[in-house]
Structures are given as structure tokens and as C-alpha cells.
């Protein structure tokens, strides 16, 4: 089972194409506010992450995911089942 520290670099790699050139992703990066994603892009990001980690993120959990760290912790939780 992947731990948060193993998930994080993979998450950065997955998110990188959605960040503006030169933008440095951090755990505290806010996904919508800082990456400037619109609602369609958010869905694209989520689909990519879901396929990468072979999980489905419930819609109910999305309001609690603001930062990269929140997303990493959610992925860890889902992978643990």
C-alpha cells in the first residue's frame, strides 16, 4: 500500500502539466486558486489522478480538498480502502 510520502511525488508529476510554466508545486498549493483551473479542468485533473492511482474519488469528498496535501491524503485514504 502506497504511503503519503510515496504518493506525493507521483501527484506532483500528474499535476505538473496543468500548472503554468515555471510554477513550483508545493504541498500547500491551492488547486483551484493557485493553479487557476476552471471547473472543466478540475474534472480533467481528477480523471487523470483517478486513473493513475486506480481509484474513484467520491464527489462528497471534493469540498474538503483544497490543497495538494489534501488531495494526497484523500488518495492515501482511498488506497487503504
Amino acid at each position, binding site marked *: 500500500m502506497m504511503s503519503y510520502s510515496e504518493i506525493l511525488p507521483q501527484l506532483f508529476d500528474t499535476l505538473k502539466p496543468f500548472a503554468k510554466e515555471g510554477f513550483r508545486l508545493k504541498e500547500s498549493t491551492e488547486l483551484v486558486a493557485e493553479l487557476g483551473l476552471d*471547473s*472543466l479542468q478540475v474534472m480533467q485533473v481528477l*480523471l487523470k489522478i483517478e486513473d493513475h492511482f486506480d*481509484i*474513484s474519488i*467520491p*464527489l*462528497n*469528498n471534493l469540498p474538503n480538498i483544497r490543497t495538494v496535501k489534501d488531495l494526497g491524503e484523500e488518495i492515501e485514504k482511498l488506497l487503504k*480502502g
Partner: protein
Amino acid sequence: MSLFDKFLPIQEARNELLKSGVNPFHLTVEKIISPTEAIINGQTTILVGTNNYLGLTFHPDSILAGQQALAQEGTGTTGSRMANGSFASHRELEKAIADFYGAPYAIVFSTGYQANLGVLSALAGPGDTILMDGDSHASIYDGCRLGGADIIRFKHNDVADLEKRLRRLGDRSHRTLIIVEGIYSMLGDRAPLAEIVEVKKKYGATLIVDEAHSLGVLGPHGRGLAEETGVEQDVDCIVGTFSKSLGSTGGFGISFHPEFELIRYASRPYIFTASPCPSVVASTRATIRIIQSQPELRRQLWNNSHHLYEGLKKSGYTLGAEVGPIIAAMIPNKELALAMWQQLLENGIYVNLMIPPATPNGECLLRCSVSAAHTEKQLVHICQTFQTLKDKFLA
């Protein structure tokens, strides 16, 4: 800061619309004339955006039944069925809709919205999972939220994505409710139901089909997509509305599972709301009899749908992929869509303007809903006006 500050973005969007001289989301129908005509802005207008698929809102049998019930049973029920008791006519309507589907169990709700709220929230609760099509109607989203189950979206009409997500659930797939629609309201396309049934069976999930837009439209008897596809026995539950093809108000759920009856005791949108009023119940029962005895209405609806679809296609509009009573013309941007919608109205044609975020993939749509009651003359006028607007705005 006040509670009302959150409405500022809405106010700005509304002001933007008002600058164009018209607010398409605050239209007043000054007088309704028939299933396909009304007075709007002082002029006679053809209605091509009211989901009145079979044109039954003025049928004399339904009107008479409603009038008689109004006189005999009064204007309302003044409360819920759980507290005040069911009127005999509520039970008779449930029997009528159950018989129509050949199903043993039916529950009637006060609106179609509440049918989804009531059935979905009761069926899937905390610890359960819902797999819903990404293009689902707002009532499905709201019903899912109310229940407290984990809600997972799959890509619209993508059975491979649905299967992938069922696989990911592991043993939880047995406590998973899949929700799809017979005809999707934005683009008029249908769920690939035969394939969805196969996947549902493979993973032991439960399947519910919302036939709101397909009741009276699809299937040899007008029961919807499940009938048309020949999978009614494999669908665990069907929900629908009386407010489109049946020209009334209210919603329903039907099922072959005996436990479905117990939803009455677990469904807050059923328990804590006033039951449907007697005149509406009586009109609905009359209309169910009409759609059972007059299959020619469905044939006329399909003839009219082909007429309008082919007409708009010939003019060069990009339309939804399937011919049907919902015909959505895709317009490149919001400004054009609004201008064209306004010109249609000035030419005596009312269609639905649909813009993001209500639409799939950020599309701007001029959405038509065809009726069996549209005349050849009306359809010709609609096609000609769309042609004129295509030349003017999209050349």
C-alpha cells in the same frame, strides 16, 4: 458581509443578461392558448421548449377528470399521506402507474424532483455507493446528496468507465446503485442500457433508470428506454415524472422488488410533504389511459421529431447525435446563443436557451422539445426561422 452577499455574482450575471434587453430565465407566459401556443410579449408564440411531448395538457378527458375531482374531493389534501392518510385516488393512481409498467409496486410523489429525492435518498445511504452518469439531472444529484452515500460520477454514456469504477469498488459493488436516464435532457441522447444492464449484473449492483423524458416517447407501449431495449425485468427501479408526456404534475417510482414498498417509511421527501392534490391525481390517471389507448400520439411525435431534426440539420446546425423529441442546436458562444434565442422569440418561437454551467462540456444550446401536437405549418415556420438565423448569425 451579509448572507445576501453570496448572490452578488448572480446579480452581475443577471444584469449582464438584462443589458441585452431580455432575461430568458425570467420569461412570463402571458396567456397559454394550447399545448403548442401561448401569448408571450404580446404576440402569439409557438412553444418548442416545454417538454409537452404528447401535447396532452388540454385533453378534454384529463380536464374533465380534474374538474370532477376538484368539485368532489376539494382543492388540496392539506398534508402528507403518512400523517393525514392517503386518498383512495392516490392508491388508484399508484395502481394505474404500476399496471402501466406491469410492475407490482409503485409509489407516487408530489413532483418528479421529489421522486428522485425520495427514491434515491432512501435507497442509498451512508456506507453505500452511487455511480451516476456525469450528465445526470440536478434532481439526481440532489437525491444522491440527501441520502449520504458516496457519490461517484462516471463519464457520460461510457460503459467502460462505469465498469472500471465498479471494479475499483471491489466487494462494495454489491451495495452500489447505478443511475442513468432514458433520454438525457440536454442533448436528447439515450443511455446504452443493454450494455449497462450486463455490467450491472456482472458486478451485482442495483440499477435505476430515470425515464422522465422517455416515458410516453420510447418503447412499443411508451414505457421508456427499458421497454424499448427489452430489459425491464433487469432494471431494479424506474423513476419518472407526470409533468412531461403526461402533462400533469407529480412523480413516481416503480419496482419489482417487494422491499420497494418500505421506501414510504424511509423517504423524507415522501413523508414530510403535502400529497398530490386530487385534481392533479385525477388528470394524471386520465392521461395514463390516453397514452395507453392512443399509440398514434407517439407516432406523430416521432414524425414531428424527424421533421424538425432533418430541417435543422439541413440548415447546417450541429445537433445532438440522435433523432428524438429533444433537439439541441449547438451555438458557438453565449452571446450568439442569447441573440439567436431573442430573435427566435421575436419571430414567435420559444425554445430553451441553455448555457454553462447547466450544460455538458460547456456547450451553449438552443434546445427544442417537439410535441405530437405541433402542426406541419408550425414546424415549417420553426425550420424556416432557424434557417434565417443561421444565415444571419452563423454564416
